[in-house]
């Protein structure tokens, strides 16, 4: 199984997610530079968290226009699985692989804390190691995590079962519509989520609810 982590200027969770992938895969993923015109064929592409391009203009806007993203989009359209975490989720909405937009947190402050998430859809390559409706703990760390889409788009997300995970009642850290923490494409192959599973993948760091996201995708693709 070939996995790649795209590194944009200003990405800063690339190493963190590579560590989790390596633990699940048994070998290190490819670290792919944003400026490369092409990406080797991958089964899994990960867009990591961070502040690509400093979050300037709009979060993920300039990263979405990086040379390598053309290939990422093409591979996604050809069946590659794509996981976007935090800034990566923002890039996915900016490049059109997922609908909607991540806006500034309702409280207008950066928030870093654990959140309780509900797994709303557990038949994607990323979430099938969780039970349907399972509540897990994963931390968030963002200033622009407030998921927004117009009513038609929200309805479509619901009808097509594309809401992958929500914040537990009273635990929404950013005001996102319908408490959306993560969404996926209708076939579940592309997942974008604001919380950071790679920060909750070992007991020493407080808990390992996030580990099953990596074991799930590795199992699917191996």
């Amino acid at each position, binding site marked *: 199984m070939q996995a790649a982590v795209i590194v944009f200027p200003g990405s800063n969770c690339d190493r963190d997610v590579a560590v989790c992938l390596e633990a699940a895969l048994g070998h290190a993923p490819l670290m792919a530079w944003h400026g490369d015109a092409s990406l080797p064929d991958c089964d899994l592409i990960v867009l990591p968290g961070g502040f690509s391009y400093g979050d300037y*203009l709009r979060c993920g*806007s300039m990263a979405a226009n990086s040379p390598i993203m053309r290939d990422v989009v093409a591979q996604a359209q050809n069946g590659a699985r794509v996981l976007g975490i935090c800034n990566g989720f923002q890039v996915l909405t900016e490049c059109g692989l997922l609908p909607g*937009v991540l*806006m*500034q947190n*309702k409280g*207008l402050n950066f928030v870093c804390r654990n959140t309780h998430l509900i797994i709303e859809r557990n038949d994607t390559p990323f979430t099938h190691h969780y039970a349907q409706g399972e509540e897990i703990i994963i931390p968030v760390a963002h200033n622009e995590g407030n998921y927004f889409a117009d009513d038609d788009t929200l309805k479509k997300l619901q009808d097509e079962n594309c809401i992958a995970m929500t914040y537990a009642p009273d635990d929404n850290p950013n*005001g996102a519509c319908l408490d959306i923490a993560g969404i996926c494409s209708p076939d579940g192959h592309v997942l974008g989520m604001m919380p950071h599973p790679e920060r909750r993948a070992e007991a020493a760091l407080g808990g390992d609810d996030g580990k099953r996201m990596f074991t799930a995708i590795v199992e699917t693709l191996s």
Partner: protein
Amino acid sequence: MKATIQITLKSGVLDPQGKAIENALGQLGFDGIGEVRQGKLIEIDLQAGNAETARAQLADMCEKLLANTVIENYDIQLDSAE
């Protein structure tokens, strides 16, 4: 030529920053303030043949990068005097 692009949120999109500004103005004692919306202003110096090509170029820039047309509108002002 100098272009000035105003990027604003589409009406109906929640603007927490605008809301915060509205509240702060109220607290400062300004009466009669209605809704406040916050946008962005981008200034670009460009060399283009004529105003028409410049406008086309700028619109392309807005569509591709400068504005997120899911939630934002853009308005292009061009000053050919420079």
